[in-house]
């Protein structure tokens, strides 16, 4: 679409300039065209197709694309499992982002100090990002196994935690078909996810701290501010744009999370660790409920788009 508009608008430009650029401009279009076509079909076209499937009756192995209206969506929002997924995703997202931001900021400030061995510490915090969520899931599944792992230490403190096998809901109250609140089992998954992704926010904040000119701190020191005050009153507020980026990137990871939970816990008893990504996978590829699966996918997409679209638009504006 864009390239079509582009060539049309070229005709309105003065003829002299157009002639000079013609060949190069054609080449530029040629460079972009394959990608534009691929993205148009496989991103936008396929999303539209998924949307179409989500409005159909295709809930068996045999494709049936007859129009079903919002039937699949209405079914989902009344479904115990999907309501549990929404609760879990909300709780997971808030806890996950909260910890990633707090620990990330703390570690970045610590690594910003003049300390020996900084690069070793930095690498320790960064390396889990190079790992697959599947590896993380496999390892943490064992570490947080109720009869072993960290519980061997916690038992000495008199704690006997059930981690991801716990079906309790904290601060729960009845909401729809489900108990709304904080599923204890989700905390186990949050720990694994925070372990893996903290490095991301540390890296972002460190880059932000590096971008703050020394004069800013110097000036504050001259005015008699303590180091603590400098961070609290000057540096951390300057890092706010970074926090926005980290929140949005983490939110989109969290809303579409699948592999970590699939490898670590699966849906869990009573769906205490289920998320839309896992439900979509199981209902579509294990149960052949294609229209239902497509509806879950579209809901996931919309929830991500709520964060991402304004972010993309604002970062484009910030550029120009």
């Amino acid at each position, binding site marked *: 679409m864009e390239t079509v508009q582009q060539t049309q608008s070229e005709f309105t430009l003065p003829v002299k300039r157009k002639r000079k650029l013609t060949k190069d401009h054609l080449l530029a279009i040629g460079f972009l065209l394959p990608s534009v076509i691929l993205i148009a079909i496989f991103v936008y076209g396929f999303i539209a197709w998924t949307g179409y499937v989500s409005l159909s009756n295709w809930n068996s192995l045999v494709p049936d694309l007859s129009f079903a209206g919002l039937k699949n969506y209405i079914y989902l929002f009344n479904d115990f499992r999907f309501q549990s997924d929404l609760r879990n995703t909300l709780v997971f997202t808030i806890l996950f982002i909260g910890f990633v931001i707090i620990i990330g900021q703390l570690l970045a400030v610590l690594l910003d100090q003049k300390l020996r061995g900084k690069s070793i510490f930095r690498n320790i915090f960064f390396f889990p990002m190079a790992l697959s969520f599947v590896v993380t899931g496999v*390892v943490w599944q064992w570490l947080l196994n109720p009869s072993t792992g960290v519980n061997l230490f916690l038992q000495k403190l008199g704690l006997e935690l059930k981690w991801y096998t716990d079906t309790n809901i904290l601060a729960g109250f009845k909401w729809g078909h489900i108990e709304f609140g904080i599923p204890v089992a989700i905390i186990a998954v949050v720990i694994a996810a925070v372990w893996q992704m903290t490095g991301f926010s540390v890296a972002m904040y460190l880059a932000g701290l590096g971008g703050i000119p020394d004069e800013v701190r110097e000036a504050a020191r001259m005015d008699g501010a303590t180091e603590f005050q400098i961070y609290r009153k000057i540096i951390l507020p300057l890092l706010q744009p970074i926090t926005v980026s980290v929140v949005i990137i983490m939110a989109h990871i969290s809303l579409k999370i699948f592999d970590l939970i699939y490898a670590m816990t699966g849906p869990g008893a009573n769906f205490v660790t289920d998320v839309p990504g896992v439900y979509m996978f199981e209902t579509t590829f294990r149960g052949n409920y294609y229209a239902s699966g497509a509806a879950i996918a579209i809901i996931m997409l919309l929830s*991500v788009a709520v964060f991402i679209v304004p972010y993309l638009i604002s970062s484009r504006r910030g550029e120009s």
Partner: protein
Amino acid sequence: MTARRVTVPIFYLLLIALSLFHLMPIYVMVVTSLKPLDQVTLSEMWKLPTQLDFSSYVTSFEKLAPNFLNSIYLVVPATLLSALFGAMNGYVLSKWKFKGSDTLFTLILFGMFIPYQSILIPMIQFLREVQLYNTIPGLIFIHVVYGQPITTLMFRNFYAGIPDEMIESAKIDGAGFLRIFQHIMLPLSITGFVVVAIWQFTNIWNEFLFAVTITTSDQQPIMVALQNLSGSQIVQWNVQMAGALLAALPTLLVYIFLGKYFVKGLLAGSVKG
């Protein structure tokens, strides 16, 4: 400066505590993988092995080796092709801007944030149609298509750092679109290619959703095979931990030797660059 005497130990204490949290899984992985099965009891998981036993590595290697190869066949072409597309797009979108090019860029960029569940059903239909379902080339195709937004973003940010004056003076010397790309941009892109390649290599190696839905049994990449290892009836934790380490090894090695570029990629991928 007396304040530093108090704060520095506290800083170290915090750093060490959080480092232990970060290293704990690696410790358990390594220790467990080196134990024979009869020593892998739940109550002794934190203890060092009494003698080194590499049999878990042999077992997991035998099970995972074909999938490890599949991942190599997948990652190498997918990384190279998506990097090439990214360089081409990034060049046009940074140095040959036209009316609407920024909007087009944003539309491309959106593709890297979508949950891939939202294209998965048509993708499987499509791959079946073109006979690429359950094949490595099918997965390569997917990773090239959906890798483009991030590689385009990285190269566009990278090329934005190359001064426009260089391009202008080359144009005055009579160089055209292709010559500028070939003789100015590409030679200056080596760092860009390293950053993008490392990023794509890591992401594609670690990817799971496409791998588990597009391929079955002998076509499966390593991460699916690793996940299947834990799905078996008797969980042999030592074999599983050895398998997890084997599966993680390539990306860990890349991080250990080229971590600087990995972090660069991470920062470049956060849109603003």
